[in-house]
């Protein structure tokens, strides 16, 4: 908890809901405090000075004051409104996916995590800028798992500990990593993972974003194979998230519905 009655918070609005007569309750991810909830008084009035600054996806500097049990937003100024995320439904969907994952994995009062905050901002920028969000979203997922302590084991078999050989493998949600074909024979609930898909996942885990984005030309050069790899990693990661969160995510279904 902050020592001061009022403090500045560099925040991203994760979600909002209506509250009382004309107020809005915000769920924020802040650089200073991690996840917090704050009340924006009068934000649903047409003449509100805050309303436009506190829409979801917006990167905004807020002045938060300690209220009786919630923070109260006293000032708001947009840093980046990510307007490009709003003119394109699929991008809106992916941005919402990024926010939903963070919202589901974090808790209030668990404290700040500046690297996670930076990852969030960078990922929103990438989804806004790039024509295809696949790379930005997969990279975000991998890094998010790292920061939260769920980094999947992709280099050694999660069962026998031997090094993974260049061949098709299994992936286990419960063991949180790759299982080699020899161990995988007798184990239940495994998911196949192709050599190619594993290569990309490893690449995202080890490399900077700039290096990771060099991998994409390979995907584009062999369009058909590239698409099946994209699909495979997407399905696998979503399965893993559903397992970790013990609940289905909302946004993948939405993205599927609006994708042309």
């Amino acid at each position, binding site marked *: 908890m902050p020592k001061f009655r009022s403090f500045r918070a560099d925040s991203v609005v994760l979600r909002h809901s209506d509250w009382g007569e004309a107020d809005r309750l915000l769920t924020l991810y802040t650089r200073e405090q991690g996840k917090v909830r704050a009340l924006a008084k009068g934000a649903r009035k047409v*003449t509100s000075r805050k309303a436009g600054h506190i829409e979801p996806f917006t990167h905004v500097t807020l002045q938060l004051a300690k209220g009786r049990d919630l923070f109260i937003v006293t000032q708001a100024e947009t840093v980046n409104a990510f307007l490009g995320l*709003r003119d394109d439904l699929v991008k809106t969907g992916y941005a919402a996916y990024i926010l939903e994952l963070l919202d589901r994995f974090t808790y209030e009062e668990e404290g700040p995590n500046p690297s996670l905050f930076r990852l969030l901002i960078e990922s929103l920028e990438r989804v806004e800028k790039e024509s295809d969000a696949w790379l930005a979203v997969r990279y975000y997922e991998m890094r998010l798992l790292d920061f939260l302590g769920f980094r999947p084991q992709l280099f050694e078999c999660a069962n026998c500990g031997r090094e993974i050989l260049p061949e098709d493998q299994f992936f286990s949600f419960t063991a949180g990593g790759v299982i080699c074909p020899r161990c995988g024979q007798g184990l239940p609930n495994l998911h196949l993972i192709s050599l190619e898909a594993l290569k990309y996942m490893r690449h995202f885990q080890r490399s900077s974003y700039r290096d990771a984005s060099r991998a994409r030309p390979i995907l584009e050069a062999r369009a058909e194979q590239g698409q099946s790899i994209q699909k495979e990693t997407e399905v696998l990661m979503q399965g893993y998230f559903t397992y970790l969160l013990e609940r289905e995510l909302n*946004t993948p279904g939405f993205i599927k519905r609006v994708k042309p």
Partner: protein
Amino acid sequence: MLLPESIQSLITALERLPGIGPKSASRLAFYLLRASEDVAQDLSVALANLKANTAFCQECFNITEAGRERCEVCESPKRDGAVVCVVEEALDVLALERTGGYQGKYHVLQGVLSPIEGIGPDDLKIKELVARVANGEIKEVILATNPSMEGDATALYLQTQLKQYGVHVTRLARGLPMGGDLEYADQNTLLRALSGRQEMS
């Protein structure tokens, strides 16, 4: 149990309403207990009729009286059937009607797309709108969803769905509100206010 069963059950029922906590609920319950007979009587009749006497208009999905196929607006011969204004909630119809400046018909979506809450196109009355437009009578669709991320997403989706029918699709203008303040306006609003500026005449 300190309170008689009938008071306690009223308190419990009132507590389930939004914005009413246990204290407010007991205050209301005791007010009704002390107030004259007809206050409670009127309230109970109104509550009983609320669900029984309302239904959705089969054309625009606004709320109307039970037993009616279509609402007052849809039935009125004075209304222009070539223009349809798409809104999120029935209350938005009320707001537009209060202005007295709109002569077309409505379509109530009964919600808004929200990727984060998992509300997709199938949860709204979108198919019904597309069917109305496909009938051919409609020339213009005015998208009057709220100017929020969810409202914009809904408008965007509707635009893609309606494109193939060749109707004129418009969106309510966005700009600076009456009594507003330029200094506090956000980029999105200011940009749109600039691009939608109008000749003074």
